[in-house]
């Protein structure tokens, strides 16, 4: 990988060719024939113009899968308005195609993307001129593209949090209430919802009742986490109860920030859509698949 401190090859396909990853079959063969996992041929890809792909790839089932995964980073303020929101998206691919396929992937709305960084296999010129991803893919799993959508109006916020957290000054009890609900989800279900919040030091314990899911408050780290699960729009999940505060001290200065995690299947929240995938250079017909998913990245609600 390194020579004289210069990084040389970090492309996993080449490394795999130099030293083949062990498989059960190979171990058996090695013990019988005495051969090793160390390849004794120069990796073919290393010097070609497509250093990321090895030659002589063969599959019985030719398939190409693309996952469009978007993460929303957002800061929502007390009143529920968005302070900043941006989408970090990636397209991860799993391509198992025989030979030297040349793929083109086009989007319905490529102008959405603010900044893109490509796997080296993508031909930059065609993207510049036609907004089409044209590439000879590496073999196996790789990240084709990562992108960034920061234009405020394009970033839809799929969930909202209603909160009412108050530390009462006089008594040593505080009130805590949060409700999570869907918003701009294009009819898709929000699932895998997880709410975490770092409570101030002055909170000794919390007595809460969730309408669904399970919750834990760790009195040592003061971390509250509530595993909500799916959001049912008809019956919004909520978590209500009281907090025991340290007696005798003034109310905490800081407000807890609520951290949200969620997943939405079959939706790219930016609205990015793949138009079509074409293959050139090989005769067979591959199986193609595209999956969309939206996740929360650093999604924070200030209280």
């Amino acid at each position, binding site marked *: 990988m390194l020579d004289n401190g210069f*990084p040389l090859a*970090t492309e996993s396909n080449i490394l795999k060719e130099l030293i083949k990853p062990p498989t059960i079959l190979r171990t058996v063969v090695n013990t019988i024939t005495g051969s*090793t996992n160390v390849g004794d041929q120069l990796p073919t890809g290393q*010097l070609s113009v497509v*250093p990321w792909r090895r030659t002589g790839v063969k599959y019985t089932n030719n398939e190409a899968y693309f996952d469009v995964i978007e993460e929303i980073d957002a*800061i929502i303020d007390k009143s529920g308005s968005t302070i900043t929101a941006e989408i970090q998206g990636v397209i991860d691919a799993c391509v198992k195609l025989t030979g030297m396929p040349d793929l083109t992937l086009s989007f319905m709305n490529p102008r959405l993307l603010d900044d893109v960084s490509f796997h*080296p296999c993508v031909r*930059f010129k065609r993207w510049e001129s036609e907004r089409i991803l044209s590439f000879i893919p590496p073999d196996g799993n790789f990240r084709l593209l990562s992108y960034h959508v920061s234009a405020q109006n394009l970033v839809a916020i799929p969930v909202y949090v209603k909160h009412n957290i108050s530390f009462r000054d006089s008594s040593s009890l505080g009130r805590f209430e949060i409700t999570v609900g869907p918003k701009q989800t294009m009819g898709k279900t929000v699932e895998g919802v997880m709410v975490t919040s770092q409570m101030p030091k002055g909170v000794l314990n919390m007595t809460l009742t969730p309408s669904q899911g399970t919750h834990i408050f760790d009195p040592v780290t003061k971390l509250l986490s509530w595993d909500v699960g799916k959001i049912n729009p008809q019956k919004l999940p909520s978590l209500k109860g009281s907090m025991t505060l340290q007696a005798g001290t003034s109310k905490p*200065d800081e407000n807890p920030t609520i951290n949200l995690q969620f997943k939405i299947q079959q939706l790219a929240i930016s609205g990015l859509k793949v138009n079509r995938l074409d293959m050139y250079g090989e005769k067979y017909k591959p199986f193609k698949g595209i999956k969309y998913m939206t996740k929360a990245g*650093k999604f924070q609600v200030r209280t």
Partner: protein
Amino acid sequence: MTDSKYFTTTKKGEIFELKAELNSDKKEKKKEAVKKVIASMTVGKDVSALFPDVVNCMQTDNLELKKLVYLYLMNYAKSQPDMAIMAVNTFVKDCEDPNPLIRALAVRTMGCIRVDKITEYLCEPLRKCLKDEDPYVRKTAAVCVAKLHDINAQLVEDQGFLDTLKDLISDSNPMVVANAVAALSEIAESHPSSNLLDLNPQSINKLLTALNECTEWGQIFILDCLANYMPKDDREAQSICERVTPRLSHANSAVVLSAVKVLMKFMEMLSKDLDYYGTLLKKLAPPLVTLLSAEPELQYVALRNINLIVQKRPEILKHEMKVFFVKYNDPIYVKLEKLDIMIRLASQANIAQVLAELKEYATEVDVDFVRKAVRAIGRCAIKVEQSAERCVSTLLDLIQTKVNYVVQEAIVVIKDIFRKYPNKYESVIATLCENLDSLDEPEARAAMIWIVGEYAERIDNADELLESFLEGFHDESTQVQLQLLTAIVKLFLKKPTETQELVQQVLSLATQDSDNPDLRDRGYIYWRLLSTDPVAAKEVVLAEKPLISEETDLIEPTLLDELICYIGTLASVYHKPPSAFVEGSRGVVHKSLPPRTGSSESAESPDTAPSGVQAAEQPAVIPTQGDLLGDLLNLDLGPPVSGPPLATSVQMGAVDLLGGGLDSLMGGSNTFAPAPSTTVPTTLGAPLGSGLGDLFDLTGGVGTLSGSYVAPKTVWLPAMKAKGLEISGTFSRQVGSISMDLVLTNKALQVMSDFAIQFNRNSFGLAPAAPLQVHAPLAPNQSVEISLPLNTVGSVMKMDPLNNLQVAVKNNIDVFYFSTLYPLHILFVEDGKMERQMFLATWKDIANENEAQFQIKDCSLNADAVSSKLQGSNIFTIAKRNVEGQDMLYQSLKLTNGIWVLAELRIQPSNPSFTLSLKCRAPEVSQYVYQAYETILKN
């Protein structure tokens, strides 16, 4: 039987077993043994005793075994140099193996064996490998040259490997090119003097072609190399930039940063009006933002680099403020760095957003971060003037929270706000005083005391407040003690009657009961000042202080430029040049940004030019020591305007040694040096007169001269009387128009703007014919030369002396007044030649009591020279007579207001004294006409 076997057997054991296995005939067993050896080596056991046995295994066609043996060799060859030679033969043989993988492996390993004896044998195989048909071998060999150069530089040069390496830059395979570039860069770095990488446009073109095709690491080598290239003009720079920009979309953040470095460097050469410049700015922003979506560690690296970029070119990220907003679970190092960048990007447009965020941060859990956030609010106030009021009210809100550390930080920053905007926000002092008791940190206490001292006259109980601090004087930190001393002295000077006791108490505490030298010395200085001359003390202690500068935390411009050249390296993360943390010879080379090429400028002095260009562009930073010294010296020099020029120039030399400061002296210097060479004339008409006219006159080329004599510029308004604005100037008359040639020099620490000028009524109705036009704000230590056209249609009032002119100059700071005397000959009009007959008649007509006689002494010109010289200034000779060996010149002149003056000039060839008789209907002008004569003739 001896007992020796015990000694031998104990030495054996594992090593012995391994030795036996290594010498086994079975291939499989051998390989296992070598693996065991490597394993022991890796965990740190000494297996060097097995050297010969391992080397014996080298001759094998099993690649795995060979690799293992090579690994062993790299580790132990140095400890067994003699034995290592045994391996040489195999290396040489392997270099000719049909399998390129083995050839490359051999040449790579040989390079890693740092044994002098081996290097000699290495040369031949290496030469072959550099010309190998397989690019994989060539690229490995290229790196090997760098390794060999490190061991034995002389050998590499003698063998001509460097030239071969240079040829590889033109190789057909991009990876080979990349490695050759990497190797050459490394060699060049350790030998800064060798110009190995003197790239020309052709080789640059090859590199750019290879850039598109090689691997990510290869791209980094090439980009780093490009960054060291100095394009010959802006067009070349632009075309390189165009080909580098696609790299900004690379997935590897190191490639992105290297590309950013190249662009930032070459942008320096592009003109800002170019469309492409704007495009480039737009293209740079998104990749930088994307870098921030990585892991926190990478984010930090990106943020440190962005911090530099934002200081150099804030316009790139000016719309991207929001991405720097802090998430509560960011690691603290990311938070602080983001905060810093937010302040740098703060401007009038986004200040509301920023303040709302900062206020939010001030309620976070992390105390360190909260403090920084509060400080940040203060920095915003100082940076964005329009927001100061908002910032102050935000700070007041925060003080209301009564959170101890928030209050203390707020007070510290409010002090700085006062220093930037004095006499503006005193209304908050009352609120501050309420929190006096809660302050326990020295910095906050000192800040509060400073505020009380500075505004003592407006705080009714200032003496009580300060007295309360004084009680525990000895327990305070030095910072607080010093501040307390100064504050009480200020208070005393403002309210001397009630506070005499207090000041005596503090002075004795500071001088007698303290052993801190700073405190004692300051105490004594105040004491002596107060006891010698309270008025002077007042002038010193309560003198107006220069406002604090906008950004005190900017990186110094030359360092910033150097760091920009190191974007994407450790230097840009540390914000220190490599020489500060890299040991040895590497990294000592100082890099600098290319000079901006305008139209004709050539890069003759790349070292000095860029810094000069930068200096002009950069906003005001903290005054460097040199500037301050220059300023102080200047204060001393200021008043004796008529001081001997020799002394001044000597002093100038001294300042020169101190660096900086020189310009400020040159600009406003009252020496006879042709000052205009340092400043650029802003108008084209008259300024020629000031320096050049001077020279023309001396040479006596009178006939060709179109304008009258111009006196050298003198200082009219010294800087210390005008809050740092120095004005020097002179008057000139050229082809019928009068102008006032001014040099305005800014010797203050802030930018001056909004200049305007006005004259008081004067004897000849002189008035500015156009407003004073200073096109750009005047930065500290800059001068501007202006020619102000005058006319004589203003209102008239007789002045005493007659040629006195009172001037008022206004700028953004204040209005300043000065008066100056103008030489009368600027009023001598072009049609002042009288008819002979008319002259005779007028001469007779004017009464004899209106005749005035003067002596012009020490003038050695002859009559003709005198006459032509005077004509240059519109004094016309009507007749010339020779009477008894004396030359009599009869002359006439007319003033702008129509007054005729007739003159008779008697010149005796042997006598340097001339006699001048003047006749005029308004005899009071005669004296000034005589002065004009004298000035003209003697210069």
